[in-house]
């Protein structure tokens, strides 16, 4: 039961959480925004319209788009397979999906360096076919996909599990094909959870730093995403521009959060 806070302790707990939020989240974000404008609007505008900044922004958007599409497909297929069919090793597979949440992103980056880099057994073949993975855009996409792939599957599996398989069985008995069943029967149940997880996945993909920084190679204008660009500006003591570009990411995060809340609200409204 939710009730109005009563007594000293309730207020103290609320105060502690509020203070923590302000100190840890709101204050730093506010600092980013104020710092970005400290050297004036002119510097801000110059920083975000800088050639390299714009290239980084485009790269980030491209990588995010590809990642979200891949992970949505993978997530839906995996969730469907894991909840609709019984097979040996199913539990193990569900556990494996969570690995990216448990592994440090830096290690995820290293995995790809070892798999596709110069020391790998695949390297001669990649070279012969002129395929660049590491220190190129494919590597960045792979690293980002790896880090964010549990989002969609994790969000959908519980929805499918809770609903059971009877509706699909009814459709099978009436002779519907797999595509019709998914599109007409299963998908309507999933759409809010799917949209929600796509939003979370987008947020994480845009902001991914660790794994990408390992595989990127940091070629300015070529393999720098926004978070990496911010770091490089900062390392070069261009604090104003660094904060200005960072504020772009913050604004994107705010938009994404708003979208998430909208989706949650719409889903709740429909359930009623």
């Amino acid at each position, binding site marked *: 039961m939710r009730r109005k806070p009563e007594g000293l302790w309730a207020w103290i707990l609320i105060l502690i959480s509020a203070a923590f939020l302000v100190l840890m989240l709101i204050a730093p974000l506010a600092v980013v925004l104020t710092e970005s404008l400290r050297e004036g609007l002119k510097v801000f505008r110059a920083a975000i319209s800088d050639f390299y900044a714009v290239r980084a922004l485009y790269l980030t958007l491209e990588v995010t788009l590809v990642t979200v599409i891949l992970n949505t497909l993978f997530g839906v297929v995996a969730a469907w397979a894991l909840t609709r069919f019984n097979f040996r090793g199913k539990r193990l597979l569900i556990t494996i999906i969570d690995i990216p949440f448990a592994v440090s992103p830096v290690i995820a980056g290293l995995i790809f360096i070892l798999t596709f880099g110069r020391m790998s057994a695949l390297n001669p073949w990649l070279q012969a076919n002129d395929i660049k993975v590491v220190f190129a855009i494919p590597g960045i996409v792979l690293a980002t996909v790896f880090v964010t792939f549990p989002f969609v599957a994790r969000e959908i599996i519980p929805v499918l599990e809770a609903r059971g398989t009877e*509706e699909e069985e009814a459709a099978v008995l009436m002779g*519907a094909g797999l595509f019709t069943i998914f599109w*007409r029967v299963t998908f309507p149940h999933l759409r809010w959870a799917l949209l929600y997880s796509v939003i979370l996945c987008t947020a994480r993909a845009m902001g991914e730093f660790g794994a990408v920084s390992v595989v990127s190679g940091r070629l300015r204008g070529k393999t720098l995403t926004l978070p990496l660009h911010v770091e490089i500006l900062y390392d070069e003591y261009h604090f104003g521009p660094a904060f200005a570009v960072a504020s772009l990411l913050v604004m994107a995060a705010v938009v994404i959060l708003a979208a998430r809340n909208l989706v949650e609200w719409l889903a709740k409204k429909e359930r009623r």
Partner: protein
Amino acid sequence: MYVKITGINKRFGDFPAVQDATFTIRRGALAALLGPSGSGKTTLLRMIAGLEHPDSGDIVVDDRRLNDIAPSQRGVGFVFQHYALFRYMTVFDNIAFGLKVKKMPRAAIRQRVEELLTLVGMAGLAKRYPAQLSGGQRQRVAFARAIAPSPHLLLLDEPFAAIDAKVRRELRVWLRDMVGKLNLTSIFVTHDQDEAIEVADEIIVTNQGRVEQRGAPVELYRAPATPFVTGFIGDSIQLDNCQLIKGFEELGPVPGAVRPEFIGVFHPEAEIPYANSAIDAKVVRLAFRGDTFEVGLDLRGCPLTARYALDSRPIAVGEIVKVLVWRLYAFTGERVALVNNNCTGDHPQGYSYVI
């Protein structure tokens, strides 16, 4: 026979869900698969529909072996326990789904769905969503959806389980009429013996994955084939030792069961037939049951339940009455024999066997 199930086995891992199930159902019958939960009845139904595959055995409907035929080609309609209506489709689209999949022309679909809606008494509710319907209405829609593609065989999994008691009685009668009207061979699964007895023409009793007995409700009641059926169909009280009852000493120390109507209860001062076979028993409970009293008796430590006519001389709790057990079921292993009290010869008097 229309439906022939022969030697079906099905295991889930180490659990034998169905063991050597064999039974038949005649054309046009409304049959019940009756058994406690975990007895394999739903698994059997799902195997007939093609939602599960038997490990061995044959499923034959209308002389066609169904084992290797795809579920949608079997000509089977299925009503799920919780109806499994498509939540995001209207009543119309739910019923039309199977017809659309079969690529029936639009106009024909519209006509068929409207015909079915009228049949199940839901005309005018075509645009509703399942969430806007009562339990009974959902059941009707599920029924209409199952019969829309004109199946030869209708399967229903616990069709009344999700409905409250009052509506359930109505729906039982409704289902009976509906299936009768369509002359559609139907099998429904239930764990409720009253439901099976009231609705079905034939009952197949399952227990622990095996078919215990198949027959008309009256046959099962009158001549149960196994101790399980004796206990499961109708009221009966288990006896650990039939010898304890006067008139059955020659049976030996075998277990058995008695039905309430097998027991005569007499006022202590009443004139009774076969007085020397009567036993004293104490009345421990007396409950008014409309047309009779239900009497709880303590017969030498053995609890019995009997009936006592309303117009007989009144008896009271605590009183010692005379009891005559006319007949009982004696169990020898898995077999059941109906045995008369030896005082009566083979013609019990003062006792009429009414079902």
